[in-house]
Every structure is written in structure tokens, then in C-alpha cells.
């Protein structure tokens, strides 16, 4: 999301033109451990056990200073489960002391009231709880019976300690139909920010292709989300579509509207205003991207050097229309969109530049009586942030005339 950052009421993680020109990593997403107490079917990093070589406390605290030196405004702690790292409160306190906002993204299974109290005392600003569907749907996706109720309990703890509480939800074949009811539940639970992302075919999710949405389902997803965004706003809920939701079509403004109807998707901002960090100190331009996008490790180079000079961090600002392929290469929105979310495109197609998860594209195919369907042709290897490969099958819409 980019625009002139004219309003002080916008979250600090929103970037403006000055941030792009200065290439400020406005929003840093930091996996501080891969240890996890859930077993999510869609986990891109295949979290569970901690990495063998996670940063020490001293290294992590030094990294906080290096992040601040780059002008970052917001650091989001993720995992695994960030609270399973013994020094997580020290890290939060150091981030706040360095003048940056800090939020925690969590499944909330063991986010007890004591833990929330300690995090609040350390200066934590906000907590985003992952809730994917209702009751048994969430429990199935998260791999732990009772985890839905635990997540709601975590929301109550967060609110009780005066912290801002948000919800993150995966949109996939299991959760799509439950989104309207889920919105009612999270509003009643005090949520004011709801971030939605399409489940991306990475890590564990690549092993469950039946869970993934098909490209033609964007015809259902986008109108639904635009409607929920409008209804949510009337009830004080701010719906935030992740970068892998879009693109354009007649609902773009309604969905992306943040106090300004002219705001639209402008392309992937990995490496421009977003940075991802893995628990072993690997630096990436986006937390979800696979290893070819890693720019280096802070154990070997200073963060500023990696951010400013590492070639893999520069792919976004240097790419041109010639880097696009397939449908995206000739798309009306190619110059602005640049094939949308790099993470989603790479995970599905094996390389960036052609992204079938797109509303404009689905509408175009629909107008010709066609639709695209993804078929998995290669399994993932079973590593963190790995992916399989999919092929696109173009087929006739049921009962629709074909004008190929």
C-alpha cells in the first residue's frame, strides 16, 4: 500500500513515496524462532522445532540496533511461536527502546495472561492472532484440537492488558465460506484489524493442494472481501488484504480503500519497504520468499550492507516488463502490478512474473467462457519455505460457450 503518507492515523507500517525513494525497510518481519506449539497444515516455514543455529541473545539485540539504523518503523515478531524463545521479552524491549513499534503475530495457543502481561510491560504495541475458520475448521488447519478456543482466549488476554488486537486469517478451500460468520465472531471479540491472505502453496501448504484456492475462485473471493470490507468498516473493523489478494477489477477500490478511494495495489514491495529475517539471521526481501531470495546473513555481513548491496534484495526495483511472462506479460495492468505477489507466483509457478491468483485475469478468462485451473506437477522437498510446482490448465467454464 503506497500513497503520500499524509495522515498520522495510518499505521506506521504503511509506506509512502519518501520511503520508497529512501528505500527504508519500513516494516520488518522477524521470525525469531522456528519453534512452534501448533502444527499448521499451511505453514510455509514448516515450523515446529527451533532452527539449530538461531541467533543468540547478543546477536539478536545487536540486530535490533542495526534494524533501527536503517530507519525501520515497525518490527513484527513471528515464528514458529515467538513467545517460545526465552529472550522474546528482551527483544521486544530492545525494539521499543530503539524507537520502533513492535507487534507479535501468534497462533495464541499458549499466550497466557501472564505472557501477555509481561509482553505489555516490555512495551509490545499490538498482537495479531491467527484464526483460520471457525471451531473445528481452525483446529484442523492448526493441527491442535481446541486451538480455536485458545486463540479466542488469547484475544481476551490481549484486550485485558490494553493492547491492540488484530486477527490474521488464511483464505483457502476450508475457510472461504466461513469468512462472513468469522467476521462477526472477531468483531464481537474486540478485533479492529483483520488481515486476510490467500493460503500460498509453500511449505506444508504445498503438500495439501486440495486446500488451495483455484484461480477462478477469485471471482468469488474479491466480491466477498469487498463486501466484508464495507460492512466491517461500518462496524469499526479495518480489513487489510495481504499483497497476495487482488488484483484490480471492479472491487479493487472498495477492498484497498484506506480513507482514500484512489488507493490501489502497486506491486510487490519486497526489498523496497519490506524486509524479512529468519531466526538464523538470514535476510530476505520478504519473510515468505524462498532461499533464492536470501540476500545474506547478519553473522557474515552488516545488515545495511545486505539491504543496500546484496543482489537478491534488488530483484524488485530492477525488474521490468520483460521479466513478466504468461498472461501477466500482456496484461493491461502489467506496468503497475508486475504480476502481484512474488511469493505467491514463485511458489506456484517456480519463478516470479506470472501470477494466476488474480481477479482481473479470472474476469478476463470468464468473459471468454474460460477459466484457469492449477494442477500440481511437482512435490515440495519438505524443507522450510520450499515449494512444489503447478501447471495451469485452461478449460471451458461449465455451461459456458468457449471462444478460445
Amino acid at each position, binding site marked *: 500500500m503506497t500513497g503520500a503518507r499524509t495522515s498520522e492515523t495510518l499505521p506506521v507500517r504503511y509506506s509512502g513515496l519518501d520511503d520508497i525513494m529512501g528505500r527504508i525497510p519500513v516494516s520488518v518481519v522477524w521470525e525469531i524462532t522456528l519453534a512452534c506449539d501448533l502444527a499448521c497444515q499451511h505453514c510455509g516455514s514448516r515450523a515446529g522445532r527451533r532452527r539449530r543455529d538461531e541467533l543468540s541473545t547478543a546477536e539478536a539485540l545487536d540486530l535490533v540496533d542495526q534494524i533501527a539504523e536503517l530507519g525501520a518503523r515497525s518490527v513484527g515478531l513471528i515464528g514458529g511461536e515467538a513467545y517460545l524463545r526465552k529472550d522474546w521479552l528482551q527483544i521486544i524491549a530492545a525494539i521499543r527502546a530503539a524507537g520502533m513499534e513492535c507487534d507479535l503475530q501468534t497462533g495464541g495457543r499458549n499466550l497466557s495472561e501472564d505472557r501477555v502481561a509481561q509482553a505489555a510491560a516490555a512495551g509490545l504495541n499490538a498482537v495479531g492472532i491467527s484464526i483460520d475458520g471457525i471451531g473445528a475448521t481452525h483446529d484442523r488447519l492448526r493441527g491442535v484440537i481446541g486451538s480455536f478456543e485458545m486463540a479466542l482466549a488469547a484475544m481476551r488476554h490481549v484486550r485485558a492488558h490494553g493492547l491492540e488486537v488484530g486477527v490474521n486469517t488464511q483464505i483457502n478451500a476450508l475457510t472461504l465460506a466461513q469468512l462472513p460468520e468469522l467476521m462477526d465472531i472477531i468483531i464481537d471479540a474486540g478485533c479492529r484489524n483483520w488481515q486476510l491472505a490467500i493460503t500460498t502453496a509453500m511449505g506444508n501448504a504445498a503438500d495439501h493442494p486440495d486446500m488451495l484456492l483455484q484461480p477462478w475462485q477469485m471471482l468469488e473471493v474479491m466480491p466477498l472481501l469487498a463486501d466484508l470490507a464495507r460492512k466491517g468498516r461500518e462496524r469499526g473493523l479495518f480489513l487489510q488484504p495481504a499483497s497476495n489478494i487482488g488484483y484490480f477489477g471492479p472491487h479493487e*477500490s472498495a477492498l484497498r480503500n484506506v480513507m482514500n478511494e484512489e488507493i490501489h495495489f502497486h506491486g510487490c514491495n519486497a526489498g523496497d519497504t519490506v524486509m524479512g529475517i529468519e531466526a538464523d539471521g538470514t535476510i530476505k526481501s520478504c519473510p515468505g520468499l524462498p532461499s533464492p531470495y536470501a540476500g545474506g546473513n547478519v553473522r557474515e555481513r552488516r545488515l545495511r550492507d545486505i539491504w543496500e548491496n546484496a543482489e537478491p534484495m534488488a530483484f524488485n526495483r530492477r525488474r521490468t516488463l520483460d521479466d513478466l511472462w504468461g498472461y501477466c506479460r500482456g496484461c493491461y495492468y502489467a506496468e503497475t502490478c508486475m504480476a502481484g505477489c512474488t511469493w505467491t507466483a514463485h511458489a506456484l509457478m517456480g519463478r516470479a512474473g506470472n501470477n494466476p491468483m488474480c481477479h482481473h485475469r479470472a474476469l478476463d478468462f470468464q468473459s471468454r467462457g474460460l477459466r484457469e485451473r492449477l494442477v500440481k506437477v511437482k512435490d515440495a522437498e519438505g524443507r522450510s519455505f520450499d515449494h512444489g510446482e503447478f501447471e495451469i490448465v485452461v478449460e471451458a467454464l461449465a455451461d459456458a460457450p468457449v471462444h478460445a
Partner: protein
Amino acid sequence: MPTPRFMPEPGRIPVPLRLCRGCQHFVRIENEACDFCGGDLAALEAAHQLRSAEVQDMIARLQAALAVH
């Protein structure tokens, strides 16, 4: 917090689009007509601004009336 500095190689500058108030599609900023519905973008924008002003006026009058009662 350090002051943002301008780097020799800035990030990718987004290519802006404009919103067609007729069909709600975004179109190229230099367009006079919408590539999707064919509408006159300037005329549609003017009509939208007029409607918005009328709605704002209505809200203000409603709020004033509610304050009286």
C-alpha cells in the same frame, strides 16, 4: 529515528492509475475515457464529487436536526 536518506538506487516507483467512477475499474492515468466501460472519466469524476458533496450536506443537516432534538 534516522532521517530517511535518498539512495542512488531507490525502490521501484509505483505506476499510478486513476479510478473510473462509472465502473470502479482503475485505468491509465492519462486516459480521457475508461478502457472498460467507455465512460468520460472527467465527467464521471465531476458527477461523483457533486454527489459526494450532496451526501455530506445531507449528513450535516441530519446531524444538526438530531442535535436540536
